[in-house]
């Protein structure tokens, strides 16, 4: 049989995916053991016991100073920023992307500008952003927005312009105004695509969130990781990284579910 046509059975389907994770954990455990053999105080690859203790400390016991459970208050702070950033970026890119994609005048006016915007590395203009938007939550949210909105806008405008011309003509022959075409024909078809676009941007959003929190902040997952980096406290950093990874997964999952649930027509239409 060709390798190509060999399909794993039911057991293999459950077992195989676990293997790389098991290997990773094994490699970590060995690496940690080796380092601790050389230096019992090694902080870079803490043993599993140290990790568990750290998780216990940050997630399940109140911080002595503030009485808060660090992991949860950090998570709350970060997620608030992330969601605000995503929401603003989504709304902005929705409004601009839809109109730019649909209206020829706007398309000509803004397409090159948005293309240039989306190429500017936001990290490089951080000081200006901070001056313009202050240092509170606003600037962190703005960094996320600036980081992902131009890409999302471009993507959406492109998808609007990819709508079959037949649809727009048909709508006009049904008597639709530009506004009605926008709200009843174009926008509803773009919603599931917008979700795709948000999913694609999630990684970048996390990145900018972490970068923003690293610079000016008093709480948040990124803040904590940066604070701990100075002390090489990997026992805290690693669980935080795992937690962020899990949250990223969760977001992706929720968005996919949302797409399927809210737009049942989309899977069929996309398949074509």
């Amino acid at each position, binding site marked *: 049989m060709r390798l190509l046509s060999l399909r794993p059975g039911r057991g293999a389907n459950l077992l195989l995916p676990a293997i790389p994770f098991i290997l990773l954990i094994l490699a970590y455990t060995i690496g940690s053991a080796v380092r601790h053999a050389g230096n019992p105080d090694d902080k*870079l690859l803490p043993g599993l016991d140290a990790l568990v203790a750290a998780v216990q400390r940050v997630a399940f016991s109140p911080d*002595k*100073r503030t009485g808060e459970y660090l992991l949860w208050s950090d998570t709350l702070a970060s997620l608030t920023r992330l969601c605000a950033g995503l929401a603003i970026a989504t709304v902005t890119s929705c409004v601009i992307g839809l109109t730019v994609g649909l209206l020829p005048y706007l398309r000509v006016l803004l397409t090159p500008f948005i293309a240039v915007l989306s190429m500017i590395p936001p990290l490089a203009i951080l*000081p200006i952003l901070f001056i313009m938007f202050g240092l509170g939550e606003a600037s962190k949210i703005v960094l996320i927005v600036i980081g992902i909105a131009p890409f999302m806008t471009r993507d959406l405008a492109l998808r609007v312009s990819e709508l079959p011309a037949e649809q727009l003509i048909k709508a006009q022959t049904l008597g639709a105004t530009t506004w009605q075409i926008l709200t009843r024909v174009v926008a509803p078809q773009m919603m599931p695509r917008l979700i795709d676009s948000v999913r694609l941007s999630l990684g970048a959003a996390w990145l900018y969130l972490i970068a923003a*929190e690293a610079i*000016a902040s008093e709480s948040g997952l990124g803040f904590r990781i*940066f*604070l701990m980096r*100075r002390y090489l*406290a990997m026992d805290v950093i690693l669980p935080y990284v795992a937690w962020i990874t899990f949250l990223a997964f969760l977001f992706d999952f929720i968005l996919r579910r949302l797409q399927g649930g809210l737009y049942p027509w989309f899977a069929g239409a996309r398949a074509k």
Partner: protein
Amino acid sequence: APKKEFKLAWSIYVGWMPWQWADETGIVKKWADKYGIKIDVVQFNDYVESINQYTAGAFDALTVTNMDTVAVPGVGGVDSTAVIIGDFSNGNDAVILKDKTSLKDVKGQKINLVQFSVSHYLLARALDSIGLKERDVTVVNTSDADMAAAFATPEVTAVTTWNPIVSEILKRKDAHNVFNSSQIPGEIMDLAIANTKTLEDNPDFGKALAGIWYETMGIMSANTPAGEAAREAMGKASGTDLAGFESQLKTTRMFFTPGDATAFAKSAALPKTTKLVNEFLFEHGLLGDNAKSAEVIGVKFPDGSVFGDPNKIGLRFVTTYMDSAAAAAKN
């Protein structure tokens, strides 16, 4: 023009942790209320960004070193006044070598440090002390947040950095502290500065800052349960614990009383240090590209004398506010 709301930017460093503690325990509010103003204490995780924000005018006051005051706001046309001299580094900054025990071994090495920071200055002074020049070594710009991890890599053999990273790195057996700021006492000062113009218009702001600071100093320096609790809280907030924080305090020459600080401000060491710092900045092109000498920026001392250009003052050392705090304490 008089205003009512002020913003202070601070970043995580042993000598600046009291600001947050004072804010959390209500000391800031108490003093602000006393003068009928509002003071917003904002934490920066990134020291550089806090200086930039102050320079750009987004903040009225800042915790910063003397050197960076001249190099950034000073060169950027912002005239600042040192409201408080909080401490000077007395071992907090160090040159650390891996497996080598003598500063002389630094020759020819790559040294990881935050370029153009006090670490760079410390290194220059260290090299100076053994007759080497900066061209005898290679500096590699490295973020302070990653210095501890950097030192753990095989190819990094020398770093210059500050606390808490210094104590973190010195926990390693192969790390050796070959030169530190206790060998150049008083040259790296940690200040709370404020925009001179803002201060002139609102002297109450300066008085409030000084009041906050010395009330806090009184509590944290005390060998009482309250003092220990304060120190533990500050340690926690900076990511370490009581022991870690106290070991950092040991290498910091804190001026717990206004008198200590004013005495230092009036000492003859200050103009000497200023000259060294400005020359360092000039040699590294940090005084602007049109700078002809180390004296393009002026630094004014409590006695009214000025180093450098008196028409372009970047930093003023005064004792006004610390004196008023001392006076208030006596009443």
